[in-house]
């Protein structure tokens, strides 16, 4: 073996190796293989995985954002439609309510005017009654005095005169009512 090494060192036969070159190569390569498998490959593979995960994650995120945007748009459209319907409904209600209020007011006004008319009628009747009563007294007295003076006859007998006046007046009234019925 020693012979072979010396031969190689002299370059006599290029196919005969220097054993120490083999040793150095094997040890050196073992160290390199250890470093590569321990540090380099895991680091590169991790980077690859993270990168592909980031790309896939980015795509998923974009899809999620797109879906969210679509949902938001849909919800806004829905809300807009709802709001329009609501506004229409409120307008309709207001119109109906206005009509209702108007009708109520008209009715109330009519009732009020009827009440006032009624009251006026009652008052007029009462005043007429009072006037009739007062006239009956005064007309009786005046007519008696006048008649007494005219006929010269004392008509001081109140009871009789009162009867006469009453008869006169009831004649008058019956004539009046006959005239009214006519």
């Amino acid at each position, binding site marked *: 073996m020693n012979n072979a090494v010396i031969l190689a060192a002299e370059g006599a036969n*290029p196919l005969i*190796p220097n054993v120490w*070159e083999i040793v*150095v*190569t*094997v040890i*050196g390569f073992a160290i390199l293989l250890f470093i590569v498998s321990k540090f380099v*490959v895991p680091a590169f593979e991790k980077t690859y995985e993270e*990168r592909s995960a980031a790309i896939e994650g980015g795509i998923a995120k974009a899809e999620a954002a797109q879906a969210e945007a679509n949902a938001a748009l849909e919800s806004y459209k829905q809300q807009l439609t709802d709001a329009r319907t609501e506004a229409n409904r409120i307008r309709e209600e207001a119109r109906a309510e206005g009509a209702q209020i108007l009708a109520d007011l008209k009715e109330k006004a009519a009732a009020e005017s009827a009440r006032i008319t009624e009251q006026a009628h009652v008052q007029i009747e009462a005043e007429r009654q009072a006037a009739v009563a007062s006239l009956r007294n005064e007309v009786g007295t005046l007519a008696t005095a006048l008649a007494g003076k005219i006929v010269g006859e004392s008509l001081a007998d109140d009871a009789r005169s009162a009867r006469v006046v009453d008869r006169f007046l009831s004649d008058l009234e019956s004539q009046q009512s006959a005239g009214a019925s006519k």
Partner: protein
Amino acid sequence: MPNDGHLQRGNALIALALPAETENGGFHAPGLEDLHLPEILPWGAEYGTGFGKQMLLVLLSIALISWFLVAASRRGAMVPGKFQFLGEYSYSFVRNSVGKDVIGERDFRPFIPLLVSLFFFILVNNLFGSIPLLQLPTTSHVGTAYALAGIVYVFWIGLGIKKHGLRYFKVATVPSGVPKAILPLIVVIEIISTFFVRPITHSLRLFATMLSGHLIIALSAAGSSFLLLEADGLLKPLGLLTLAGGVGMYLFEILIQVLQAYVFVLLTAIYIQGSLAEDH
């Protein structure tokens, strides 16, 4: 290269130069002896270590590759910088174009470290042949080529036994669908080609291409140097021709160096795939 030879003749840097000795004015073509450089630790020579430039370069390559790969992979940024990109690009070239495509999507992951280490180790050690001052493809020393091919040889046989048990030797040597009559012949050929020829061609292909490339460049450098400096007047211009040829060979050699690293790793992947395959 032009700096070879005359500049460093008789210089202490002789260990880094390719010698182009001129004896008595004659041209002496550099041979294999000239490529074996003096040892750096001469006292070790007594014990036959011969610790020389080649071993130093092997260790240097280990340090360079480890530093490069660790530094390029450590950051792991989502958007790689130039440095990280270079590391990732060459890593994923071996990982995908060699490992994944040859061994297959399902099984290739455990072999990434071996393939990546082999590729970078051979690439850098080959390229040492084209780096000025270093100028020695360490794989042109057959010991390194034997060592690498030996590691791969042990690895794929071990892998086959681990996967199939001892039945692996049957899987590897007895092809299916061969007529019974010629089967013995085929089996003998398969045994020789798989278990004996394969590691030899695997190592010698690398070693021989590197050594011959190294020799060609040394020869053209020495020839140019001799022609330009020492030759008679009329022959001098020929030196320019050999110089141009040498530069061309230098560039071609870089291509060969990269290609051989790729070929070596590709074959390794093919051997691994063969060990994993169910059928021959």
